């Protein structure tokens, strides 16, 4: 009889890389000549520049 999958705990595939520091997050990107952006929002809801 096939194993019952419903309700069975499933080991996550992604955990190994997260646990060994091999996950890839946006902040980990480091390309040659990479530039960084920062969004500076206006403190004024409606104003003439």
């Amino acid at each position: 009889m096939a194993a019952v999958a419903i309700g069975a705990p499933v080991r996550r595939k992604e955990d190994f890389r997260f646990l060994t520091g091999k996950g890839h997050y946006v902040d980990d990107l480091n390309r040659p000549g990479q530039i960084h952006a920062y969004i500076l929002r206006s403190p004024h809801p409606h104003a003439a520049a």
Partner: protein
Amino acid sequence: MPSVTLTVNGKKATAEVENRTLLVQLLREQLGLTGTHVGCDTSQCGACVVHVDGNSVKSCTLLAVQAEGANVLTIEGLANGSELHPMQAAFREHHGLQCGFCTPGMVMSAVDLAHKNKNPTEHDIREWLEGNICRCTGYHNIVKAIKAGAEAMAGAR
């Protein structure tokens, strides 16, 4: 620019750094060890925890030049090839992670706790985790994982 020489995960590394360069910047940006994360930049979240001469340290709170001559262990140096360290294996087994961002810091911090306290209680673990923030799951499974991981580490000795 000052030069700093240290041992990282068993390998000697020398780098030119600025006086203000933080240890985590040296690890991530110059040595390419991006497993150590910066979650807050204000020394609260603990995602950047590494071991410096055997003690867990927030690497965003230490200047790179302060680590001169030190022995640094990061999350990348914990497993033995494809064989997870008992603490890493316990996190996997007990679902102690979700997005994984806080995990390197949690695991490094937990390993230091287990070195200092062979049989930590739930209270000991929760108190120790004061400096590590998880925003996914809450701490229930992390605490369970650390208890099991500490037991496995004590058993392995």
